[in-house]
């Protein structure tokens, strides 16, 4: 039984921490490169074997050409990416601000927090994608509809994370501070705000991934600009190489963002006490 306790002690194990003891050697790198070459080589050969196949899966060189064209001078995708990133950034700020505002209003009153708890949990469980048609009807295909959709998509993630974070603060810590004569404002500044910050950072990866995804999905479903729009148009015109290039572009941005946030998270978790 002791063993099983150890197994479940840590709720969220980290895959992203680099493994100790194992450094990728020559063999590992050879296989990695081999796998990539197998993928692209097989793809190129399969595409070359028949016209019918090439129409469906395109070919790596065509994807490369598309990327070079669209991101080269006179290409349109830097602008498209900028629009998408602006939508997700604005939506993110709006969502975060609303989550913090609601938290500040509700958290000090425990019965209000408990009252809205189940509603927030239910809203957090709802697949937010289903709300997209509603936002398009409400706000049209404009920038607004994407910003609001992104804000709603991450609002519940952030609020729920912060809410559980604040509640997980050791009550002993708060009591001790009170005994030492801390006032309400001091409690907020010294305990609640730092705790909220660490939990925001902990929720940052999930919410930023969602804010990018929500923006692209909303563009894909109804818009006239942005990278999601480019993908949707290419799909309708059956330009597979453009579809793949667009997905690769968004994926690259997302992965870079994700890695950067992991760094940030690790830096902050160093002094994390909550």
């Amino acid at each position: 039984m002791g063993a099983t306790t150890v197994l479940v002690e840590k709720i969220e194990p980290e895959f992203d921490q680099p493994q100790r003891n194992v450094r990728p050697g020559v063999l590992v790198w050879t296989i990695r490169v081999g796998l990539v070459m197998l993928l692209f080589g097989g793809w190129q050969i399969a595409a070359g074997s028949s016209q019918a196949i090439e129409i469906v899966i395109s070919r790596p060189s065509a994807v490369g050409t598309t990327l070079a064209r669209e991101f080269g001078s006179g290409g349109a995708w830097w602008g498209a990416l900028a629009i998408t990133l602006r939508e997700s950034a604005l939506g993110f700020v709006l969502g975060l601000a609303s989550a913090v505002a609601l938290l500040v209003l509700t958290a000090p009153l425990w019965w209000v927090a408990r009252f809205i708890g189940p509603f927030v949990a239910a809203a957090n469980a709802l697949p937010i994608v289903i709300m997209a048609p509603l936002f398009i009807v409400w706000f049209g295909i404009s920038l607004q509809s994407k910003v609001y959709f992104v804000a709603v998509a991450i609002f519940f993630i952030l609020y729920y994370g912060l809410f559980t974070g604040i509640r997980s603060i050791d009550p002993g810590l708060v009591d001790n501070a009170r005994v030492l004569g801390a006032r309400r404002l001091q409690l907020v500044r010294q305990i609640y705000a730092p705790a909220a910050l660490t939990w925001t950072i902990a929720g940052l990866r999930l919410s930023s991934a969602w804010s990018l995804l929500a923006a692209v999905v909303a563009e894909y479903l109804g818009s006239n600009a942005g990278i999601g729009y480019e993908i949707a148009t290419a799909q309708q015109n059956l330009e597979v190489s453009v579809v793949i290039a667009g997905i690769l572009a968004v994926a690259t941005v997302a992965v870079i963002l994700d890695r950067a946030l992991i760094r940030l998270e690790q830096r902050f978790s160093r002094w994390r006490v909550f």
Partner: protein
Amino acid sequence: MRGVKLVLAIGQVAVVVGAIALWQWLSDAKVINTYLLGQPNLIARQLHGWFTTGTLWTDVGATLLVLVVGYTAGLTLGAVLGAALGLSPFIRAVLEPFVVFFNGMPRLLLYPLLLVVIGIGTPARIVLVVAAVFVIVAVSIAAGLSEIPIDLLHNMLLAGASKLDLARHVYLPSLTIWILSTARTTIGIALSATLLGEFVGATKGIGYQAVQGQANLDVNQIWAAITLVVAVALVFYVIVGSVERRATKWLPTR
């Protein structure tokens, strides 16, 4: 404390009922723009209409088919990949960059590609759900398995445990815990993938009805679809939650 809980529960139900009643009242009094916001009686009429014509079951059935098949396949594939990554440092070392990339990218975006390559239809949607789910499951299981204390394994080996014993008494229980713990968190993602799949190129399904509502500028139809999604999500969470409770009954309560 029990009394407080009861009061809270009654209050919560009252708030929901009150909000719907207020919404209806404001709609009848023409205070709010029902064209944009919809109104409860028309949402109920829409749901009732779907129920009587039988499209309700067609749509919910189509959504459930994609959701259940894709989710199950995704969990299975994720468990296999996760076990491989967690148990073999070599496999993990080789695949790590690929897993990290695939885990970091927004996988729902693969749908346009799947639509072109596989073609419009249920298979593309199922593959989308699998793609959305499996890597999350794999990463979680791999991390969980690699955290099995090495001392425990060494102690068991010293006490004469065979590889089969280790598999049965250490790895399998650990695997079960991690599969179950990700099973609940991935329901929402699987459902999101299913609905997105039905937004484009579908002829039935809850997501299809929502997009029809958007095309017809009929907000009530969208709200009705959202209601169905809530119902499906609720049922799914209850089922997975009860499976989780049963399977982890043996765990010491923390």
